[in-house]
């Protein structure tokens, strides 16, 4: 992916917030972004699986990105939003805190993650785009949905 980004000078990212950090996924892989949906929990599933949601008649698995990235759980009462991404095995929803704007990045802004990032997160974060006043962390979608 970084190679394709290098060839193209710019790349659009759908951004969202997780535990105060700004994350982004390439717009091409995003099917849609929707507000909080009632979720059905799945006993016995790994804790990164948030539950099942009804997306217009389709049953879709929602993954809790905070848990996936080893972050502390969302505060009680704060409902997550859904970023629905397309994967090889159909649509999967990523649960995030808030949805941000679509941001255009330039390849020149990109830098791979420093070694100090925890292993769990480093697996899923391809690197950071150094924006003017913050860092945009690029999520590796295909890895993030491998639970």
């Amino acid at each position, binding site marked *: 992916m970084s190679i394709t980004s290098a060839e193209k000078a710019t790349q659009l990212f759908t951004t969202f917030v997780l535990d105060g950090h700004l994350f982004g996924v390439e717009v091409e892989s995003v099917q849609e972004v929707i507000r909080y949906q*009632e*979720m*059905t*929990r*799945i*006993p*016995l*599933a*790994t804790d990164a*699986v948030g*539950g*099942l*949601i*009804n997306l217009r*008649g*389709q*049953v*879709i*698995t929602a*993954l809790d990105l905070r848990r996936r990235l080893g972050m502390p759980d969302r505060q009680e009462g704060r409902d997550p939003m859904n970023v629905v991404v397309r994967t090889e*095995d*159909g649509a*999967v929803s990523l649960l995030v805190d808030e949805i941000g704007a679509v941001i255009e990045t330039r390849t020149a802004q990109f830098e791979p993650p420093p070694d100090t990032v925890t292993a769990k997160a480093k697996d899923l974060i391809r690197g950071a785009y150094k924006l003017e006043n913050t860092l945009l962390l690029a999520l590796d979608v295909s890895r993030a949905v491998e*639970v």
Partner: protein
Amino acid sequence: MNEMDEIVQEFLVESHENLDQLDQNLVALEKDPTSRDLLSSIFRTIHTIKGTSGFLAYHALEAITHVGENLLSRLRDGELVLTPELTSALLDMVDAVRGLLRSIEQDGGEGEPDHTELIERLTRLQSSTSEPRPALPADELDVEEPAPLPVAKLGEVLVSSGVVEQEDVVEAVIEQKSSGDSRPLGEILVQTGMVAQHDVDTALQAQADGKRSVADSSIRVDVSLLDALMNLVGELVLTRNQIVQHAATRDDLDLTRASQRLNLIASELQEGVMKTRMQPIDSVWQKVPRVVRDLSLSFGKKVRVEMQGRETELDRTILEATKDPLTHLVRNAVDHAIETPDARVAAGKSPEGTLLLRAYHESGQVNIEITDDGKGIDPAVIGAKAVEKGLLTPEQLGRMGPREITNLIFEAGFSTSQTVTNVSGRGVGMDVVKTNIEKIGGTIDVQSRVGHGTTFRIKIPLTLAIIPALTVTCAGDRYAIPQVSLLELVRLEGEAVQSGIEQIHGAPVYRLRGNLLPLVYLDRELAVGPGQLDRSRQTAYIVVLQAEDRQFGLVVDDVVDTEEIVVKPLSKHLKGIPCYAGATILGDGRVALILDVLALAQQANVVVVGRDRGAGAQGSAGGAASSDIETLLVVGFGAERRMAIPLAMVTRLEEFPVGSIEHAGSREVVQYRDQILPLIRLSSFLGLGYSEPATDEVLQVVVYSEDGRSVGLVVDTILDIAEQVLSSRSDFADHGLLGSAVVQEHITELLDVRQAILAADPHFYATAGV
């Protein structure tokens, strides 16, 4: 698609259908070589293919069907009599034609197949002079130039049904034409007294049926279109559920009325669409006679195929999925089960083996049975093999019943075939069959009697997409339980919530009409609750479920409703959790998980985990012993020892005076119902030692009979009959014992009845079979 493509397409579809029929007809013809109907049907099919392939310039196809047609015409004219060699050649021709058609379908051309040898063979057979039989009268076999879709004329129908002579009809027709008679032929014939009115009526009916069945009443529909329709109907059913639920909360009469109507229509539509996807099982079965014929010929065996219930209908996808398992079972039966004619005669059976395929509906499921009258499956051989392969330890084997042992053939990597043949017995066998059946929500079971044959019984659901289900709640969530496994509901209220559920060594049970029902707490199985009922609870429900041949009660918080649900698959993130069969969307739009009853029962050790490949050796037999409810006969030895015998292994209790004991060889026997009943004194068999009783004493004997053979187990005293969940059995097993358990507050040993019986009569199972 241009016009030519369309013609080719139609030709292909039609020809494939005809060829399947041809296979069947040829095999049937072998049994009845002079059948006029079969011969003309076969001839017509080949003739049609020949004609069309000539028209479409498929020359290889034309060449091969041409020689085939010539051969068939000599058969039809009685110049040749059908021999197995001829049948094989004709079947090979059918295969060649099929190959060419496939090639046309895939590449648009015939490819460059070499059929010279086959053509030569067919030509040679054609000129070979076998015993000719008298030609059939020409008027009986009037198929020389059949129309592609022939609708027989009334006269022909009447002649072929034998009510009138050809000449009479011709005469009548000539009269009709020459005199300009406007009356229909039938009327003329009736009036001239040549035929009765009702014969004409029947013939007219047959004629009408013929017309409708081929042209008017059916159309071809693309399967993907049906699948799409099915999905849409699924969505509609969901939406209907939502609207109906919504309407119920509103005080709007019009809305309620409309929603009721919608409810009705959606149900009917669903049923209708479901029906369009139903196909008779015959569409899979019709390949069987050919397979059996070819196989039995190559093994030098004689096998007759019988079919019952070929019209039984199944959803297309399910039907597709049963194809491979069915073929495998049929091949297995011919290859392994049915003996050679010599061996069969030696065993006192008819030289021709029988393979019976049976299908029937039963409580929303389809049962398919495949029965052979071959040599049967010997549990002893299977058991030994399982131990040899390391699937089980001998101790575990000792604890298993014959039926359980037989079912070991479904274990992965199990194949008893001594020699690997090219047909079956490659080690990937029955386990694959079982997995395939289970994939479509079915079960498979085997029953066998040594020397008498084997029956495989497959149970599969009618359809997969929409199922009736019960929704329940547990720890605040709703779950759907497929109604196929539902037996009944028990509501516990007030006092009963606490007192109704009893414990046997920590295993909860409920007395359901006097029988102990093992209980499984859903919240505990799903790890969302404590696995016992809160003291403050006012009500609780026990959902009585059937898993394989066991019943168990699933304890849930509440029962919500029954509704039709659309089964949605789970994403791969959740595939690893066996407890769920899928998910569905309920009337309020929320997602609910569908419970997999069998997996739940296995997880809770209610049913044997024999199929659990991962658990391997430990899982299977250990699970078997865990928590079955059994009715036990408790017997005593001396002052202290108590022993339990499963009531299923007790035919009668008898008393014999000691004086009546006689000896046959080294054995003690008594005369019993005109038979010699071998006795075994359990106390000595188990090494408890016994003192020679006084001659006036009476022996307490537990008699077990099977297939006319009986043995008597001598015990000291008969104590009681107890119902017991054998959940807490310990495994320190002495000779002749399966272990011990607490029965009625006493330590009680469990007798290994099979071993005891074999000690009394070593040939008991060999002849009786199990």
